[in-house]
């Protein structure tokens, strides 16, 4: 598998580590239902068979965190973007 790092170009998967599914923005710690929200954020996954948004880290490369949309049935990558840009 090759991940197209937006900065480095396509690189072998062995240069990356993944945290797994991107479970959305970190919840508001001050919200009244923060406990429930944090539980879902930390533990629950949609785990779809199909395109899935994931966090990947280019550990042996440019050290960027990426948001990657990858099909879990075929391993084909639909998009890869720098997480910091998506977050802005």
């Amino acid at each position, binding site marked *: 598998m090759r991940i197209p790092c937006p900065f480095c170009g396509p690189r072998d998967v062995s240069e990356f580590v993944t945290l797994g599914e991107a479970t959305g923005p970190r919840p508001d710690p001050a919200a009244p239902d923060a*406990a429930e929200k944090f539980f879902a954020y930390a533990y629950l996954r949609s785990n779809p068979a199909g395109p899935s948004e994931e966090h990947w880290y280019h550990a042996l490369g440019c050290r960027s965190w990426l948001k990657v949309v990858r099909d879990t049935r075929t391993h084909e990558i639909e998009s890869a973007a720098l997480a910091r840009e998506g977050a802005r």
Partner: protein
Amino acid sequence: MSKPMRLSNGGLLDRRREITFTFDGKPYAGHPGDTLASALMANGVNLVGRSFKYHRPRGIFTAGPEEPNALVTLRNGSRREPNTKATTVELFDRLVATSQNCWPSPRLDVLSVNQLFAPLFVGGFYYKTFMWPASFWEKVYEPAIRRAAGLGMVSRLPDPDHYEHATAYCDVLVVGSGPAGLSAALAAARTGARVIICEEDFRLGGRLLSEPHEIDSMPAIDWVARVEAELTSLPEVRIFRRTSVFGVYDGGTYGALERVSDHLPQPGLHQPRQRLWQIVARRTINAMGAIERPIVFGGNDKPGVILASALRTYVNRFATAPGRKIAFFVTSDDGWLTAQDVLKAGLPIEIVVDARAHVADALTRPLSRAGVRVLLDAVVSDAHGRPGLKHIEVRKDDKILQFEVDVLAVSNGYNPQVGLTTHLGGKPVWSEECGAFVPGELPPGMQSIGAAAGDFALAACLRAGMQAGRTLASDLGFASAPAAVPRADDEPCAVSPVWYVEHRGKAFVDQQNDVTAKDVAIANREGFRAVEHLKRYTTLGMATEQGKTSSVTGQALMAHLTGRTMHQAGTTRFRPPHVPVAIGAFAGPHVGKHFKATRYCAGHDWALENGATMIEAGQWLRPRWFTKPGETDWFESVTREVKTVRAAVGICDVSSLGKIEIHGRDAGAFLDRVYVNMFSTLPVGKARYGLMLREDGIVLDDGTTARLGPEQYVMSTTTGNAGKVMQHLEFCHQVLWPELDVAMASVTEQWTQYAVAGPKSRKVLETLLGDRFDVSNEAFPFLACAEFFWGDVPVRLYRISFSGELAYEIAVPANYGDSLIRALMRAGAEFGAVPYGSEALGVLRIEKGHVSVPELNGQTTAADLGLGKMLSKKKDFIGRVLAERPALTDPDRPSLVGFKPVDPGQRLRSGAHFLAIEAAATAENDEGYMTSVTYSPHAGCWVGLGLLKHGAARIGEYVRAYDPVREGDVEVEVVSPIFVDPEGKWLHE
């Protein structure tokens, strides 16, 4: 040496040179260009080994990697390679091979008595018996089964050869160098595209080496030579010979194995045995050809029964044959072409049997004209002879005819090599037109051509190659004018496969795993009808050739029994590697001492010069202790080091701890969010202990972080977690809070850092630094930090302590690290300074009650470790919310306390569990476990840290430290975890 079966001329051999080799200890000779199989055959050796289950005599059945029978043990000593297919071994000088699965020899094999029990040993018999008595399985049955199973024997010695890994890129990868592959490579290469062509054989040409076709009015092998020359002349072409593409992976990545030195007695100087290539290709042309299919009839495994295409290879390419009285049993036109070649080579043919009623005259005529008996609409039902083939029975119109022959060539059409096309999940589909499974959905970027795509005729292969090579290159933007397609005739290639012939003897479907037609019938009766069930129940297709000659036939038999079509039956799943690949090749160079890279500190050489024993700390090597002359065991050295630190001063390399520099306007705010305690309020020039949680509220890491400037912090982490913490911080910054003005980089490599600890540490630093820096308590109190220059070398100084002593850590750029430790030791000499290692470091921190790796085990909360008070209530931080979950705040959770043996002579061990004094040793009574222990010179006895239920409330109580795996059971007193200087006075002195 005489080679009785070598034809007097022909063949692609270098007859001027002779190569000698031995098989089962007997010497033989062959020529460069031979394989082991062809050389054995030329020497009249056709009985090569015995079969797996029934120990039936077996010979040479094919001429390639699909060989099920001719498995030998190649080489000897530590280079011994069991189960090597003689058909794929390029002959080399002094080659040594031995037969397998037979004793004392293939001819006289004792275990052939197994054949007597054959009626019992049917597919799946072991599931039905050997159940009684239960204990006999491990004692009696299993050992016997294990001894009988497995073919060859491993040397049990370390492999002496080395292996390389390499990566190559290309625009077009061509797999296979037959007519299809060569023309494809040529067409693609002429566009200027980067082309790699991989051929597993040692010669390019594929079937053209075995079949005397004409291309562009020249003999096919001359055409091959011409193409090879042109390809070699093109700068962007790489030709990988002896290289099997074995796997297709995601993103256009292919695995290929180059057998660099396997054709030599041993690898040359600086040469690996094999090189594992990872090839990244934008497009791929699969031109792997096709494999001929056998036919299932009685005795179809006898030595002498051979695939017709293989016989053609042996005759034409290797100028040899397995016998002198040859018969054919065919269902395809291609079989007749082979028969014609055999005739041309001057070998006598007894008979050609074709199951088809009608065969073109052009095919039969040359044979009948030569006086060969031809029988159409007939079948071979049984083959006989022991050990090799002696005669066959042919059935025609319910009459049985007998023929004395020693070779029977079978031809039943071809299976395109679809293996690689399925590695990413594509499923082959049955083509009625080809009478075979052809590729279904292909991996992205791949195209199959030639025989691999079910296009069997030569002209079609050449056409497809030229076309595919050009189109794929042009997809990538490489254009060229169309070139003429090499001219050749399309040979006839009709086939009407016959899967099964009524017979009397044993008829094999999978020859290597001894799976018979009867086993398929039993599987059907017992409900194992799905192709995967058939495979798993009977082991059909699970041998070293992975069903290349057997799977489709087995499926055909099952389809026939169940009334399903081939299409409904489908194939079993193909998996990499397409051909077996040595584990060592996958492992590559990263083995032995180089299994993982070793990280060295700048002070490494100095440490070794000074008696250090080193220890792995993750990938780092750190001094464990320093042996002084006269010391005989580690305990003595470590105790001396600890005592010296407590009484005077010691120096310890702490460079491997993670160091991360964090800059920016929001650096403080950022640290507030990743640490449980406050850092934005830390004054410049100060350091603070920090604790980090994971988002689930469990402790991630700890360390001190110092503020060197208004916008500059340096964080330290544990050695083992340095990478993990860096990744975590990057995540927090890049993903969670990119709006913060923070910049960070690991500076672990940049700084060599030594801890200088003990009451005389200040003296040592004063001596070292002189008036470069004032280290007095007033100028530089506990938890101060500073940066200054020593000449033009920057120095960082921290007043922090892991040992509980008055202590400093001093850091310089690592290029000066070696010099620093030497200077430190010189400065410390007059104060009795000693270096200390990680063992003493451990003793000192346990005595001080500091937690470390054994306590930060990913299962403990801050409160468990007695650090609950550090959690700031004034701010949010990673892990705050989930740390409040009920089970994590349960007062019953074990918490950190100290332990001392009640009998001070007793030793403690970590990993022991705590039980109340009178309690029975049961799970219900388990109250926690010991995390760290040490002999404490300060306490004069062993001391420990551990997690005990309600620990803090039980100081003064006695409990048992129960350690049955080491036969330990020690009564211990629960004490404060801080054994030295509980008020922390020393730190401030």
